[in-house]
């Protein structure tokens, strides 16, 4: 640097320090806040799809079939008692009744079309689990967990929506203390079921009677 030259311009403005500290602080906040926000976001109903009805290809109304007609859940979703997968009824099962009643209904046109053309109805999935979760209906149904516990009052839903978030916490709450949700085996599909005595007391009795285990091993669901 030669003497006599004009004084050098300041490299940093007076606000530089404040900007620097603000940026550092924001950086640290972001490190904590962004993951926290993502974790929180994943639990919002928007993310889990809870309470949000899916538009189905057939305007099937559970209110009518369950409440008015009194059809048991297992009539259509029979796999729930015998398999990991509850199942969606085949078109022929629908036609078992609808070949006799409402045969002309325009609402049922897609069902008739499926049946006569042999192309399956493509339903929208409502209750989603990630691919690394292996849920088994059979054991839950046989150990006193009612349909309503996870699926809600389907008999009041015009269009079915997920009644529960189906997050890992939701599963674990029950796996850690199953007695809070157990009901007698003959009331599994009962939508209006109310325990006739305090649930804690009944749950403990049922857990013992049915041999319910509190399974929290990872491989119970993740394989």
């Amino acid at each position, binding site marked *: 640097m030669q003497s006599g030259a004009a004084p050098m311009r300041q490299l940093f403005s007076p606000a530089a320090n404040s900007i620097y500290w603000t940026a550092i602080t924001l950086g640290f906040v972001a490190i904590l806040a962004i993951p926290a926000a*993502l974790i929180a*976001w994943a639990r919002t109903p928007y993310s889990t799809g809870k309470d949000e009805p899916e538009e189905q290809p057939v305007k099937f109304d559970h209110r009518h079939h369950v409440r008015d007609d009194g059809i048991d859940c297992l009539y259509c979703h029979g796999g729930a008692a*015998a398999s990991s997968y509850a*199942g969606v009824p085949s*078109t022929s099962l629908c036609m078992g009744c609808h070949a006799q009643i409402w045969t002309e209904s325009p609402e049922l046109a897609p069902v008739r079309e499926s*049946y006569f053309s042999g192309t399956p109805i*493509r*339903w929208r999935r409502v209750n989603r689990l990630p691919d690394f979760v292996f849920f088994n209906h059979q054991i839950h149904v046989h150990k006193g967990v009612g349909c309503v516990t996870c699926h809600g009052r389907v008999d009041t839903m015009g269009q079915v929506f997920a009644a529960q978030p189906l997050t890992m916490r939701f599963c674990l709450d029950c796996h850690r203390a199953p007695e809070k949700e157990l009901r007698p085996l003959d009331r599994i599909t009962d939508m209006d079921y109310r325990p006739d005595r305090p649930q804690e007391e009944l749950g403990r009795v049922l857990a013992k009677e049915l041999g319910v285990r509190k399974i929290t091993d990872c*491989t119970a669901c*993740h394989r």
Partner: protein
Amino acid sequence: MNDERHPVEHDDAIARRDFVKWMGAALGLAGVAACTRAPSQEIVPYVIAPPEVIPGRARYYATALTLDGYATGVLVESHEGRPTKIEGNPDHPASLGATGAFEQASVLSLYDPARARGVTRSGSVASWQALGDELRRGAWTGRAGRGLHVLLEPTSSPTVEQLLTSIRARWPEAAIHFYAPGSAVNAWSGARIAFGTPGRALEPRFDLRGADVIVALDADFLAHGPAYLRLARQFADRRRYGIAERGASMNRLYAIEPLHTVTGAAADHRARVPAHDVAPFAAALLDAIGAPELAGGIPLPLRAPARPYAKLVAAIARDLAAHRGRSVVLAGPGQPPIVHAMAHAMNAVLENIGRTVMMAPSPILDAGEASHDLAPLADALDAGGVDTLVVLGTNAVYTAPADRPLHVGRARQSIYLGAHEDETAALCTFTVAAAHPLESWGDARAFDGTVSIVQPLIEPLFGGRTAADVLAVLAGTPGSTHDLVRARFAADAPWRRALARGITDDGPTGPVPATLRWDAIAAAMARFTADKGGAGQPELEVVFPLDPRVHDGRFTNNAWLVELPDPVSKLTWTNAATLSPDTAARLDLVDGLEVEVRFQGREVRAPVLVVPGQADGTVGLALGWGRSGAEEIARGRGANAYALRTSEAPYMGMGAVVRATGARRDLPITQRNRRLEGRDEEILHHASLDEHRNAPAGEAKKRGRPLALYDVRPSSTEHQWAMAIDLAVCTGCSACVVACQAENNVPTVGPDGVLLGREMHWLRIDSYFTGDAREPDVLAQPMLCQHCEKAPCEYVCPVNATVHSSDGLNEMVYNRCVGTRFCSNNCPYKVRRFNWFDYHRSEDATEQLVHNPDVTVRERGVMEKCTFCVQRLREHEIRNRTEGLYPPPVTACQQACPTRAIVFGDKRRPGSPVARLSEDERAYAALHDLGTVPRVRYLKSIKNKNPELA
């Protein structure tokens, strides 16, 4: 900076700063991407649900898979009409519930996207109808079939037999040929010499249950052949636990072989004998046993080359003579007919025939007839006498002897029914996609004549047809193959029963009385001159074995099989010119050097692989590689041994020349160090039977719980899962490796991945050489997650992705894993595998069908390892707790194991096999002193050495 002292060192496409920038951007975008919702999914139910199907629950169907014409009965697991896994059929005589690697991997071949599709004519799409029309228009139709040639794989199918009979009746001049490189023509000829029965050649059926002494003359009977699963089971049943007390009942196996095979590795005594010296060895052995009825004795020139083995021959002869009626001599299919005849003679002299060896007509159609020779077809093609050539299911252009190639183009028209667009398809006018056995109706006989129905589990994915479909067109038989197979049953009940059980009610065909013709054997011996080439200069012999992974080349497009390490050499993804250490040293060759193997004026290039235990002066080059068809995986891998193999030397030949080309190739080998480095006591216990009897007490210290500062005892839940692996009966055949791969969606990584040590097998077979470096014993040890009660991996996982379950499993939680690989680093058994890439991502919709729906398909960045087939355990628990009395769970490896070396079960159940074996006096824990308390216990390997040879 770009001067001489500071050259630009890396001319990377991506500079470091750019890389960091992109990474930052990717990270940010990944965060944004996380804020999307899971995609909406569909549920597509049946239109009309099959009454037997419950979605989500696997069903099993009995069918059969054939190899070289012989059937192995299997049960196929099907998920909503999608076959995913093959198991053995316990009711089938060739399976007894076990499966080999080929059966396990066949489900991957089913979904192979490289499979041929539909019907093509000169490369463009044609119709099945057009093919039928062309077939009926051939010039031969007016000449009683002259000019029609049909080439099939050897077959045992009663339906195909019936169709061929119709064709022969309708077109008496038509020629029917059978060809497979692995067919048993030498064995049939040998039986013809020895017994001379008319009609179908006889085949020996062995019953090793009653065999105390077994001599295998270049016979890999524990890993190859129509009944190998059964023979391996019977062999192992005489070597199992409790042998210290019942030691007298342990059998003894002598293996005489040029190349190192699974049978050689399992043998108590193994002699490395060049392939050409096996016949002299057999002659010397017969001489030592004594054949008084053989006029003139055994010609000296025949047995003279066996002089170096005199001590061994004498010892084996004495051992055999001491076990008359309780011994077996087997000859390998590659050996010339005279060796088979001599094996029959030895079995006759030793009074084994009728006891441990039954002679019965071969189930293979026309066995022992001239139609099993390819030469007449090659001649007819060259002479222009072929109008229409129909090749059904055998890639004969590729597998034909090099000196008699099939000039398919000289036929006016040719039709090829094949699984792939392979070498034969390239030359044929019409190609028809062959249906996979899991897509076909059919039938086939097992080695003992038991008939199985082949039933389809799925509609042909690519419009495939069966050989019977094509033959039916030629025979003018109306109706589908299903109708033909069904029509062989008079009533519905036996048909249904056969479909359900996998075998028909008829049972096996009976053995026939067989009397040895000593005069014919004497005449054959006089005729036989050992092909020794010129005297003096030590010559190399070349041997072409069937490959234990790809057989004759038909499985070279199956990634599970080509990545399966060879049971002895641990080589993957290629074959190699194998040499003994001494021969390699003499020729100045080392592993990976490329050589040119020249034999009878033809040559191929292959990398060298030094295999201890191979005979000196022998070059081994496995068949089935160096494919040039259109298959993506198979094409161009390894060296084509068929280019050297001639009709005179289909298995072995003298006068090979090996010369280094100067090039090097990296060999994808999964286990480089084969020495135990003196750690036998820590890793692999082994002893001879006598040593074991004399000193079992010293091992107690290896079995107790090690001292520990804090002890983790298993919790008291219902089950405590454990495994025991009996190294005395494990042959290292590797069926379990493929079974595990099929059950657990284990990906393949390719040769480059193997070179980097990234293979993903959850279960591997470690194999070690012990003893003499030239003639080592080979000890196989299946190595899988040991499910340590105090697992080192669990302590170091920062995210608790690997934890212990209450029933004793070391659990791996993929969705928690962040891929630090600390666990793998801390695992003393090195059984954890890391997904370096999304190996499954490139799979198309067809390939994905092979996945087991009960097991997560892992993605990149996740650690994985053996789970003890936890999906089967949980299924068992659920079914047991809801339906009651569900059979105990078996792991995939255990289910496949031919010798039942792997036993799995609940350690807490008193008297359960696994509890008993874990407390066996031979049981030990690998690396016991580390205090990991593994749930897998190994049982000491025991070899029943002949005291005379010790």
